[in-house]
């Protein structure tokens, strides 16, 4: 965990350092007002720009850990920490909702597909699943946006109606958010759902061919009870560990989908900051998004140990 976080922070720092020239040059060239020399010197001192790279890194990371100071965004002319938290919260929120959506859809379909193996329904599910895996998120977003524009005459996108974008949090704003949420959740969830249906189907098929199932059937247990009492429960375990890779994929995938749908998550902010070489903002976003996925992995490990106590014994 700690070494992972350390390496992630180094990667984020490298991204900050990558653009040619130091960022003060880009600050001076991008700013409309003239910046006087003393201000530049102060910034130079603050980020340790005249010092070796490892001291710059140390100043940057210790500022984050000790003071929660992520540096300044030059495009917005505000501290990075003011810009990111709400967007980060929304990213987490959307990812968790999508994860729930994936589970709710994938588990029953996976069970159905395994129980009715090699039937028409199974084949249909399989084909849809493969297509869901092959269509890139952003393409799906574009197609759905086009359909709703063409046939329902409304342009979808965004997480809020215009009047709520900058409003304070209120009940109405939450309701408005929920009304806009279905589209991104479906788009983000498709690939994950398709993958988890495959996983669930394969796991359950493995379990169903085991002898204890046969034994239970021989004793006259009803099929439904037989199915849900043990095989489904065992087959769910790998699904919990799947969070470890579905969650990073969701956060990662939401970056592009959010840009297309214009959601107020970290994706579009990262995109814009990369384009304007607002590197402290970009680096902080990459750092925080990576930390999020690492936390997601950790949570899935804990959940798995809780659901399947055999793991702890190993």
């Amino acid at each position, binding site marked *: 965990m700690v*070494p*992972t976080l350390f*390496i*992630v922070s180094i*990667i*984020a720092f490298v*991204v900050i350092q*990558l*653009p*040619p020239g130091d960022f003060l040059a880009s600050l001076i060239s991008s700013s409309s007002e003239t910046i006087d020399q003393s201000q530049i010197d102060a910034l130079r001192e603050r980020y340790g720009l005249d010092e070796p790279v490892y001291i710059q890194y140390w100043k940057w990371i210790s500022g984050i850990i000790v003071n929660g100071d992520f540096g300044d965004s030059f495009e917005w002319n505000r501290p990075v920490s003011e810009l990111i938290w709400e967007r980060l919260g929304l990213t987490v929120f959307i990812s968790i909702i999508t994860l729930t959506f994936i589970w709710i859809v994938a588990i029953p379909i996976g069970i159905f597909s395994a129980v009715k193996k090699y039937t028409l329904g199974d084949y249909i599910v399989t084909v849809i699943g*493969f*297509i869901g*895996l*092959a*269509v*890139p*998120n*952003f*393409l799906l977003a*574009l*197609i759905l*946006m*086009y359909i709703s*524009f*063409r046939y329902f005459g409304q*342009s979808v*996108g965004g997480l809020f109606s215009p009047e709520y974008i900058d409003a304070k949090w209120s009940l109405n704003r939450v309701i408005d958010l929920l009304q806009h949420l279905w589209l991104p959740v479906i788009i983000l969830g498709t690939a994950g759902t398709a993958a988890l249906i495959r996983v669930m189907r394969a796991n359950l098929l493995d379990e169903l061919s085991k002898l204890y199932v046969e034994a239970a059937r021989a004793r006259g247990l009803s099929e439904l009870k037989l199915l849900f009492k043990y095989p489904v429960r065992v087959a769910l375990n790998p699904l919990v560990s799947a969070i*470890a*890779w579905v969650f*990073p994929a969701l*956060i*990662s*995938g939401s*970056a*592009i989908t959010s*840009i*297309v749908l214009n959601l107020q998550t*970290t*994706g579009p902010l*990262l*995109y814009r900051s*990369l*384009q304007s*070489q607002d590197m402290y903002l*970009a*680096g902080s*976003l*990459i750092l925080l*998004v*990576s930390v*999020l*996925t*690492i936390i997601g*992995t950790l949570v899935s490990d804990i959940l798995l140990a809780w659901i399947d106590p055999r793991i702890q014994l190993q």
Partner: protein
Amino acid sequence: MTSSSTNSQEDARSIPTDDVLSETRIVLASQWKLIWWKFRKHRLAMFAGLVTLFLYTLAIFAEFFAPYLPQTYSAAHTHLPPPNIHFFKITDDGWRFYPHVNGYKVKVDPESYKRTYVIDKEISYPFGLFVNGEEYSLFGIFTMNMRLIGAKHAGDPVYLFGTDRLGRDVLSRTIYGTRISMSVGLVGVGLSLLLGVILGGISGYYGGFVDNLIQRTIEILRSLPTIPLWMGLSAAIPLTWHPISVYFAITIILSLIGWTSLAREVRGRFLSLKTEDFVIAARLDGVSEIQIIVRHMAPSMTSHIIASVTLAIPGMILAETALSFLGIGLRPPIVSWGVLLQEAQNVRSIATAPWLLFPGIAVVVAVLAMNFLGDGLRDAADPYQT
């Protein structure tokens, strides 16, 4: 296995029935032949293999298959919709095979100056196979002007899939895009394979501390959110770089993370093969480590590696498409599917010209085909298992 096969060979000598004959055929067949037989049974994978082959043929001979050069534009035909294609023409002596498209009349809205195209049944532009079009040089060696499909009379506006905002042919550009998009997958996977085989091999063969280190590195890399990281790295590519350098930079960035799954596959194979009888026998015979790896272990994992490589290519294609779509991957004048989809980045441009999404269909077809092909290869990779 061995005893049953000798039995069947003896049986074959006494009672040569068809069944037994086919069994001796199996016993005598080489590993690759067995893989091919098993793969052939997988209909979907066979079909997917043909589609993949077709796409790579398109990529190699893009100049021949595309009706126009990718940069050819026509200011008079911007955002031209795909035409109605007719194969027959009614003349005085009945139906005649005469493939053609109808021309368009331009209507300009007096208020908004928006141009709309109305089909003009009077005009028809014939098109056909093996026509002479613009001159191109194939592989930089042969200068030719024969094209698979195109307007019979050079200069006629035959745009089978419509045109983009500069009046460039969408079909031609998608075909040229095949070259870049499909090869990004190949080159990227090639690099990943190199890293994956070396690191996975070391990890699986030596074990111990090195194995631990490499496995932890893989775990860390896999827990990173790939797309934000790719965005950060590829945004750092200087705008002044030559498109070819950008292309290679992008493939390197993609394979920096892509090698992990291949390394895991190679490591797993090494671990399971290390304790096989034939490897131990070779070691007891005093064969050198390098020879054991190259002569004895490598051949039995090649088929598995080919299967995982095939399954890794679609991910690369999708990643390149996504990055280029955002404008931080490949950049024009390079034509890739992602670069083309950039034209369709918002609802307004799709609403005016939905046919700009056509390269997206190409992406989906390519990814599906490679996935099915990889699945089939994986199933066939171990022909001794039933």
